[in-house]
């Protein structure tokens, strides 16, 4: 270090002057910065208010948690949905809002993406579609998560309505066939009853003749003439034929009544299979019922080959499963009809049931034309149909898959060979409890 001489007066004067100019510059800079900060602060406030407005306008519930899974922020939709307050000092715990274990981490939350339930104050539970995204600090690290929960109640209600509408549509489409199925036995039952009516009148007439003969027995002069009349009447009535045919007519009439009763019973079982909740059900019986209901759809184009295995009762919503079976069987019949057309030939629908491991497996195979490669990916799309306008809405398989996959935790898939046919495989857990479904 050099020995520094004290500054001269001239230097000190210059430095003082420069110091004063520095102060003026710094004051000006501070003023500029202050103004800039004020503007930036106002912009920040506007942005904050804008973001607040967006969050509170969202119709979906928003929950922001920190890295330890503590709730940091909820929006008004969350409050409206759950009843918990929005104030920062009254923030609910995460396990108050979602079905999570105490100490749930961000990773646990991310794993919940998809269908979930939101808990409300008072214990009510609401089905939601949960979307969880990590709040990334860097590419590899996160210090929280943003959860968006969409209330699914209205969607589920609409889906139920759509499913019901499709069921009614199916029944509507089957109505003509069912009427035909009922009409045939009704006709031969009617014919038999008319025959019995005529035969009964004839027999009554003959009995009257015999009564007349018995009445004139004391004056024997009329007997001979009366006997001739009765012989002629017996000839006319063809009593041997009547006696032979009456039991057959009664049997036909009873058969017709049984047939109608079976159809009506199947219709009732199909349309009103019990409550809307899952219960243990006989799937083989459900297949028989469904075949009965849609007999007219396949009986002219296919024979049905049943290979029904020994099944335990399956925990399911029978009405929904009936709907799936109906869609598969009718589709199989239509696929075969497309091949045999009006040639008079018939194809084959094979329905098999079996238990594999924990699953019930139902296969519906047809000898139709198969599904072309180019439309295979769209088969389960809503509103996709290859049928003519008015013949199908394209909802059948879409709804069938939702019933099987979403409603029963199962799978619905198919294998198809063009020119040979298609096999649909329905697979659902046999004994799954409601909690696990």
């Amino acid at each position, binding site marked *: 270090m*050099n020995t*520094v001489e004290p500054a001269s007066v001239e230097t*000190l004067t210059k430095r003082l002057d420069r*110091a004063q*100019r*520095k102060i003026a*510059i710094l004051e000006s800079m501070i003023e500029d910065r202050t103004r800039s900060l004020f503007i930036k602060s106002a912009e920040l406030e506007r942005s904050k208010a804008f973001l607040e407005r967006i969050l509170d306008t969202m119709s979906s519930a928003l929950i922001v948690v920190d890295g330890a899974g503590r709730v940091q922020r909820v929006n008004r939709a969350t409050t409206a949905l759950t009843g918990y307050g929005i104030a920062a000092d009254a923030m609910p715990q995460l396990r108050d809002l979602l079905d999570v274990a105490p100490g749930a981490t961000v990773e646990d939350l991310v794993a919940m993406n998809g269908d979930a339930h939101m808990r409300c104050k008072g214990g009510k539970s609401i089905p939601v579609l949960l979307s969880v995204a990590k709040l990334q600090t860097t590419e590899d690290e996160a210090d929280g998560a943003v959860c968006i929960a969409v209330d699914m109640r209205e969607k589920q209600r609409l889906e139920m309505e759509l499913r019901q509408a499709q069921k009614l549509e199916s029944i509507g489409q089957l109505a003509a066939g069912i009427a035909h199925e009922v009409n045939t036995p009704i006709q031969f039952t009617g014919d038999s009853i008319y025959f019995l009516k005529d035969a009964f009148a004839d027999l009554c007439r003959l009995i009257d003749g015999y009564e007349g003969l018995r009445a004139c027995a004391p004056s024997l002069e009329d007997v001979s003439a009366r006997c001739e009349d009765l012989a002629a009447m017996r000839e006319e009535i063809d009593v041997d034929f009547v006696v032979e045919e009456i039991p057959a007519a009664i049997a036909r009439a009873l058969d017709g009544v049984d047939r109608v009763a079976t159809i009506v019973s199947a219709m009732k079982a199909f349309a009103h299979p019990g409550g809307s909740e899952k219960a243990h059900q006989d799937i083989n019986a459900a297949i028989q019922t469904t075949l009965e209901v849609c007999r007219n759809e396949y009986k002219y184009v296919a024979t049905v080959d049943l290979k029904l295995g020994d099944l335990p009762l399956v925990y399911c919503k029978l009405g929904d499963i009936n709907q799936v079976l109906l869609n598969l069987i009718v589709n199989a019949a239509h696929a075969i009809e497309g091949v045999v057309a009006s040639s008079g030939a018939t194809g084959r629908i094979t329905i098999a049931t079996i238990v594999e491991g924990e699953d019930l497996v139902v296969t519906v195979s047809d000898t139709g034309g198969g599904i072309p490669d180019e439309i295979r990916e769209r088969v389960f799309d809503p509103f996709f149909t290859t049928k003519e306008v008015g013949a199908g809405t394209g909802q059948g398989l879409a709804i069938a898959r939702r019933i099987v996959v979403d409603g029963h935790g199962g799978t619905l898939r198919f294998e198809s060979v063009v020119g040979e046919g298609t096999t649909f495989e329905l697979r659902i857990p046999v004994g799954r409890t409601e909690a696990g479904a």
Partner: protein
Amino acid sequence: MFNVFEDFVVQNWGEDFYEDILESSTLATLDPFVAPGTYPDADLIALVGTTVTKLGIPLRDALVAFGSFAFDGLVKTNPAFVDEHTDIRSFLATVDSIIHIEVRKLYPDAVTPTVLVEERAATGVQLTYRSERKLCPVVEGLVTGAARRFGLAANFSHPQCMNDGAAQCVFDIDFSPVEG
């Protein structure tokens, strides 16, 4: 840096000498230098050039000495950047990733150099410096000042230098405890 340079000159050679340098240098900036301002590099180079001419010392030595002095001045304004480290190598690793980022936040017009640090051997580092200013002696002085802060002496080898036509300066630096 301009105010640090003023302190450096005043402390070593007095206020008269600094006024002399200021009046003898051709500067683009007419107003006094203030800390929050951003000024042309050419002005600092002009001041340093005038200083070494008047003192008759080599430019490189002056820049190294200035860098070493400047480190203490810079630490005074933001001691936390250094104080949270107990190891010089971990501190040097934050120069680019933290300190220069903070500088650019405070002074949006500032152009900071690139300083990459990789640990080398048991106690050393390899420091790569890239800047259009090519002020590698200042870097050497700053690292010397930093080493002093951690009670170390820095021994430099400088196998690549931008002033010799290299694309970047590479320093291999070994640190050793200051004896006594």
